[in-house]
C-alpha cells in the first residue's frame, strides 16, 4: 500500500509553496512514496520514555554581549532585491483590491 497518494503530494506542494506541474506531481508521487516507506521503519525503534534530541550541543538561552556593531546598510540590503521602491522591498499585492 502506498504511504502517500498523488493528492496528498499535491497538498504538500501547496503547503510548501511550490507551483509544481502535473508532470512533476507524477514523478514526485512515486518517489516520495519510496522515500517515506524506506524511512517509516524508525516508527517502532524508540520506546515512549526515550527523550528526543533536537540538537547535539546542550546550550540554552545563548546571548552575546550587548554591544553596538555596524549592521548591513539599507543600500546593501536592497542591492540584491528583485524589486524595491522608496527604500523598501517591493512585493506583489497581498490583499485583494477593493471594488
Amino acid at each position: 500500500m502506498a504511504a502517500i497518494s498523488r493528492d496528498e503530494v499535491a497538498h504538500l506542494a501547496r503547503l510548501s509553496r511550490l507551483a509544481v506541474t502535473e508532470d512533476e506531481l507524477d514523478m514526485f508521487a512515486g518517489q516520495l512514496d519510496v522515500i517515506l516507506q524506506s524511512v517509516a521503519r524508525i516508527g517502532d525503534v524508540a520506546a515512549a520514555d526515550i527523550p528526543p534530541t533536537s540538537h547535539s550541543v546542550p546550550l540554552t538561552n545563548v546571548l552575546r554581549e550587548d554591544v553596538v556593531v555596524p549592521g548591513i546598510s539599507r543600500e546593501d540590503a536592497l542591492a540584491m532585491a528583485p524589486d524595491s521602491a522608496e527604500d523598501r522591498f517591493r512585493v506583489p499585492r497581498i490583499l485583494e483590491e477593493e471594488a
Partner: protein
Amino acid sequence: MSDLTRMTAAQLGAAIAGGETSAVEVTRAHLDRIAAVDERVNAFLHVDAEGALAAAERVDADRAAGRAQGPLAGVPIAVKDVLTTRGVPTTAGSKILEGWQPPYDATIVTRMREAGLVILGKTNMDEFAMGSSTEYSAYGPTHNPWDLGRIPGGSGGGSAAAIAAYEAPLAIGTDTGGSIRQPGAVTGTVGAKPTYGGTSRYGLIAFSSSLDTPGPCARTVEDAALLHAVIAGHDPRDSTSIPAAVPDVVAAARRGATGDLSGVRLGVVKEFSGEGAEPGVSAAVREGIEALVKLGAEVVEVSCPHFEFALPAYYLIAPSECSSNLARFDGVRYGLRAGDDGNRSLEEVMSLTRDQGFGPEVKRRIMIGTYALSSGYYDAYYGQAQKVRTLISRDFAAAFEKVDVLVSPTTPFVAFEFGSRTSDPYQMYLADLYTIPSNLYGGPAISVPVGLSDGLPVGFQIMAPTLADDRMYRVAAALESAAGVLTPPSL
C-alpha cells in the same frame, strides 16, 4: 621551485614565509592550473582572479613590511559556494540564487582572510548541499579527476575535485550528512567534519541547522589540521557555537605522523561490518585497520545497535529542518522572482518562484520535511527520528567508554558513474550510510585515503568523541603515514 600546484599547503606557507616564492606567484600558478583543467573538471562555479591576486599582493606586502603572519599566509583556497563571500557571487548551487552577491562574509571566510589565505573562488555543489554526487547542482556536475566519467561525491564535490585536480591545495566544505567526507573518499583526498559547533555556521546558507558543520578539505592530514585551526573556535554570532578552547589539532596530526599509536583503541562497529559496502571497499579498510595495528593500535569490536536507523532518522530530520530553512527563498528580498506580472498575488509569485528556482531534489526534501512536520504525522516521523537520535548518541557514548575512536569505511562504494543513482533518490541516500551517525551525534569524523579499489580511491573513516578532534587527527595522520598519499592520474 618545483611545480607550485603539487606542493602541500604547509610547504607553500613555509616557502612563502621563507621568501623562496611569493603569494602572488603561488596564486598565479593555481589560477593557471584552473584555466588549464577546469573546463573538464567543473570544480568552480566562480573564479575570483582579481580578488585572489589582490589578497596575495597584500600578503606579500605584509611580509615585506615584516608583519607577523600565520603558517597559511599566501596559500590559495577554494570555498564551497554555500558560504557567503562579500561581493563575490554565492549560489549554493541553485538557480534561485543565481547572480546573488552577499552583503557580508561568513565568519570562517573572515577568519581565512585574516590568516592570509587567498580565496581563489567558489566551488560547485549539489543544490543547497543536498546530494552525494554534484549531479543536483543547477550548474552541471563536477567531474572526478580520477575518472572524468564518474561523480566526485557530494554535496561538496567541487571542493574535493579542486584539490584532487591540483587547482587548489586547500578547500572548505560543509558536512550535514557526509558532504565533506564522502567527496574526500571518492576523490582520494582528506576531508574532516569537526565537532558540531566547533566551526561557525554564521554565513553558511542553512540546510539543516542542527547538523550543518563547515570543515577542511586537503590532500594531507596536516594541511587539513592547519586549516581546521584557522577556522575553528567560538563565534558569538552563532548561538550553537561551542564556547570552549579548540584542541591542538596540528600538534595531534604531527604526533600521529610519527607512526606510533601505542595504547590507542580502535572500535570496529559490528553493525557496519556486514553487507552494505562493496568488497573492494571492505578489503581496503581491513588493510587500513591492519596497518594501524602494526603501529601499535588495539582493535575492539563494539556494538552500536541503533546505527542502522541513522539513515532513516537523518532523512526525516534533515528534510524537516530544510523545509523550514528554505522558506526564506520567497522571491522578496534576494534571489529569483518569477511571474510577477502585476496581476498575480504574492502567494502565486512565491510558488512560481520556488518551483522555477529549486531543482527536483530540493523540492523532494522540502515536501518530505513538510510532511514529517505536519500535525498528524509529526509524532510518527519527526518525533520518532529525534528519539532515534538520542539512541544513536547513547550508542556512541557507550562505545567511547571502551575505545578511543571508531573506524569504518567512509562510504559503501567508490565513485560511481554519472546517472547511475539519480533515477531512484533513495539509492543516492545510501552513499551516506556510514557518515550520518556522527552528524546526528555531533562528534568529529574524518575521511583519509586508504588505497584503491579497481583503480578508484577508497576512504577510511575515523570517528571521535565530541570535542576530541585532536584524537581523530592523530589517528588519521598515523594511517596516512602507513597508507601514503594518493596521486590521481594526470588530467
